[in-house]
């Protein structure tokens, strides 16, 4: 199994060192192989051990794995015509795939990890490999942002490890070497002798993750990076890398909730509320697509974290899935939109003709509405159930009115974002002048896959599956 999981990445890694004329098509095809193990995992009994106690597949990780695979495939699909939209050399393209392969290995490890250490190693690998992916764009801004990413990413990752060691230290007296394992921690969290130490560790780890996801106070950091790099990389960032981070958050916060749910909730709530506060106003002023979407990515990650911490596992996962499909789709489509005439929002969706142009026009519009949770977007349902979970927490809370007030303020902030997106949507469709633009079949195909996946998320079958994850 582990071989099957790593195989596509290894193939890509090997091929990227040779200059093959057909490599442009080879890579996307290879990436299709990713799907095989992801689907295969679904039919195996859970929990299924891939590699000892280190990599164990449970329902949560198989879900996230599947989502990430689909995103990865679509992104590689879209990359194959990247050179038609922007200037990129062939070797850069190959390098992109080389690092993508490393990235994928790290990512797989961190998603499937049942061991805090392995999780961290995977995450670090994935992070470091993306540093170089940013650099495929040969601009000064990209260079600067790559360094920024390097430094901040490294600090964030180190904080995660620091927290992990503290957690390990708090659990070692009762679990020994097993204290690294998520499942063991989950079972024995109640017996941890020093909850304070654990909580300090949890706080530091979470902080690291939040920084990595661009939460307060690092709000523009990610936006700048995604602005500076090519759009498929931005799609990878928002669609996959953040999923690796958030899966860690899921696991850690679950353990921490057993120790003291109240603390976790207050911490996460304060933090995410601050984030959404800042981000909503930043979005209100955003003037280009990339910044807009990466800021909205931060917002959605904050919402997911909040839902999860409120006990709404199902809405958090649904929101996660929807975001993971929508955001890369938007990054890809707006990347294509921007490739002719940057930064221009007014009339961006005008001027697409032909079947693929029409489909593109239609899908991009839909995605844009879906991201602000207009029903029947999966995001609508996730926010519905997520805020439901928060209200349930409020109901058992002593300060019910205070909590509901906080929720309303949060919704008010989200409404600012909503307003901005509607403005952009209308501006893209109905304002500005019409100019002839092109879109390629494979890109539209990627978008179609995203759309189908989103539809699939809405089926009762997937709802049932997500509800069964606990």
């Amino acid at each position, binding site marked *: 199994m582990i071989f099957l999981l790593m195989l596509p990445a290894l193939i890509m890694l090997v091929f990227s060192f040779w200059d093959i004329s057909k490599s442009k098509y080879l890579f996307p095809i290879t990436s299709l192989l990713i799907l095989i193990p992801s689907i295969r995992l679904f039919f195996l009994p859970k929990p299924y051990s891939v590699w000892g106690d*280190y990599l164990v597949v449970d329902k949560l990780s198989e879900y996230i794995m599947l989502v990430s695979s689909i995103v990865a495939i679509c992104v590689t699909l879209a990359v194959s015509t990247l050179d038609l939209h922007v200037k990129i050399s062939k070797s850069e393209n190959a390098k992109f795939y080389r690092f993508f392969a490393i990235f994928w290995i790290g990512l797989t490890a961190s998603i499937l990890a049942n061991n805090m250490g392995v999780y961290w*190693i995977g995450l670090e690998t994935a992070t470091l490999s993306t*540093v170089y992916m940013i650099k495929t764009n040969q601009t000064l801004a990209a260079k600067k942002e790559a360094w920024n990413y390097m430094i901040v990413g490294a600090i964030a990752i*180190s904080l995660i490890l*620091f927290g992990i060691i503290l957690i390990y230290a708090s659990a070692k007296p009762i679990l020994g070497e097993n204290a690294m394992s998520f499942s063991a921690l989950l079972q024995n969290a109640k017996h941890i002798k020093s909850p304070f130490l654990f909580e300090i560790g949890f706080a530091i780890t979470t902080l690291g993750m939040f920084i990595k996801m661009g939460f307060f106070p690092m709000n523009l950091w990610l936006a700048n990076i995604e602005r500076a790099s090519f759009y498929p990389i931005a799609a990878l960032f928002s669609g996959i890398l953040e999923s690796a981070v958030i899966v860690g958050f899921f696991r850690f916060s679950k353990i921490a909730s057993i120790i003291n749910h109240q603390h976790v909730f207050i911490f996460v709530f304060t933090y995410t509320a601050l984030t959404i506060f800042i981000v909503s106003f930043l979005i209100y002023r955003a003037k280009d697509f990339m910044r807009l979407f990466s800021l909205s990515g931060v917002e959605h990650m904050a919402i997911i974290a909040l839902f999860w911490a409120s006990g709404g596992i199902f809405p958090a996962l649904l929101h996660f899935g929807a975001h993971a499909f929508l955001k890369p789709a938007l990054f890809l489509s707006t990347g294509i939109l921007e490739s002719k005439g940057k930064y221009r929002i007014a009339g961006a969706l005008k001027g697409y003709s032909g079947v693929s142009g029409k489909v593109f026009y239609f899908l991009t519009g839909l995605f844009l509405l879906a991201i602000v949770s207009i029903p029947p977007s999966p995001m609508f349902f996730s926010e519905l159930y997520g805020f439901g979970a928060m209200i349930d927490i409020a109901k058992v809370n002593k300060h019910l009115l205070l909590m509901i007030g906080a929720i309303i303020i949060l919704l008010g902030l989200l409404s600012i974002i909503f307003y901005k997106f509607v403005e952009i949507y209308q501006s893209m469709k109905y304002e500005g002048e019409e100019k002839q633009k092109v879109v390629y079949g494979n890109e539209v195909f990627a978008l179609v896959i995203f759309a189908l996946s989103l539809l699939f998320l809405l089926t009762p079958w997937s709802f049932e599956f997500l509800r069964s994850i606990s």
Partner: protein
Amino acid sequence: MTSFLIGAFLATLISALFTSRLYGLILWYSLNSLSLALLAISIGFKIDDNTMIISGFLTLIVKSAVIPYILKKVSIKFGLARQITPNVPVYYSIMLIPALLVFTFYLAEPITNMMSSNANYVAISISALFLSLLLIIEHKNIAAKIIGFLTIENSLFLLGTTATNGMPMLVELGIFFDLLMAIVIINLLFKSEELS
């Protein structure tokens, strides 16, 4: 012995904070790693833990020799500025560093009540973390920032050795692997910068 080495670790770190020379900084980092390595080895022998000893020796080789060497080579090769002045004025640092130490001990105080032995180590590690962050903050120079990042790694390692008496072998190796990869990436970044 342990206390002395921890003291040395902190001392080298603090000295690094006040350095205004790149090579000096690299030297302090190397000494810092050296004290860490010795600490790991000594604790390893004390509790008779092979993993710890191995990782101690690895630290000795990699962190206190190989990485400083590479860094120095890189900085010569790419002609990095050797004069590095801290952004944060010295009088602030003088106040901040003790305050941080006090704070971390205050922070770790509840742990003492619960777990008796390791609280102080946790406190020192956290303060080392803060100090390394401070190192990153006070320098604009990229090489200094990298060293700050490496000292964070060191304080992690310190925490790992002192507070938990070592981590599983796999994790330790993984950390080393990632560290090396980071160096490779940094190298690549510099290289491409030179090309462009």
